[in-house]
């Protein structure tokens, strides 16, 4: 069965890039452009994996991570981070994120992370 991935980033470019990496590998992709949308999309679609940007309007990625983990402890989330956000990554890992990827994304690193977590 096709695995479903929720891609959360306020930058359209980043969502397009991640989709371009994931869809050819036969993953189904759902999108959200802020943390609140991610919380809503998670509840609606129950994805196997979530890519979560950190800095976003409306609700930031850390708050969204904590909200999703509170509501769905089984949720599997990976943080997408820019250089210089190490402190936030540490907090995210403590809050239940499984891994993180650094922008600019390396397709091999993204796929390695996905395959390791959901196959």
């Amino acid at each position, binding site marked *: 069965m096709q695995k479903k991935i929720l891609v959360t980033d306020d*930058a*359209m*470019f*980043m969502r*397009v*890039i991640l989709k*371009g990496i994931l869809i050819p590998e036969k993953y189904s992709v759902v999108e959200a452009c802020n943390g609140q949308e991610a919380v809503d999309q998670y509840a609606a679609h129950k994805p196997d994996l979530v890519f979560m940007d950190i*800095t976003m309007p409306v609700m930031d990625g850390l708050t969204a991570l904590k909200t999703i983990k509170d509501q769905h402890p089984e949720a599997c989330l990976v943080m997408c981070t*820019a*250089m*210089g*956000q190490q402190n936030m990554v540490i907090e995210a890992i403590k809050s239940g994120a499984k891994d993180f990827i650094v*922008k*600019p994304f*390396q397709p091999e690193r993204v796929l390695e992370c996905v395959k390791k977590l959901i196959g």
Partner: protein
Amino acid sequence: MENENVSVKLINPFVAASYSVCSMMFGQAPERQPLSVMPQSITSHQVNAVVGVTGNIKGHVILGMSLPTADRIASAMIGAPIKVFDHLASSAIAELANMVCGNALLQISENGDICDLTPPTIIRGSKVQISTLAIPAIVVPLKLSMGELYIIVGLRHEKAVAPLQRAA
């Protein structure tokens, strides 16, 4: 002049960040051209990504380029040709600015300066005057196969004002 000196010290992290990000994104290191100093008012390029810097260091960084260069850079980032410089292309250029500035601020933070970035703003229009008030900017032209990219760095340290103490 003091502001200019401070600004020069802050240039290298942006040059290094540009090399790193361009090498990773485009598989090529840019060729650096001679620096120049701009006064407090800048005539914009056709496409400008403006990022504000707050914290111990304040000011702005602008990535400026021509529209054809922006089209080629966005096309390379997206992996497909850009027909019109649309929202997706703007988003790509904004992310390039985000990555260069984020990478540079990481290097700057290693010297103990804590700064943050504002989300990039894309300004289009080659005759727009951008006033930087009291912060002169250093311009770093970088040559890529896609065209020239101008990194305009107008930053200064916020000084902590210590009370003047005299020996009794």
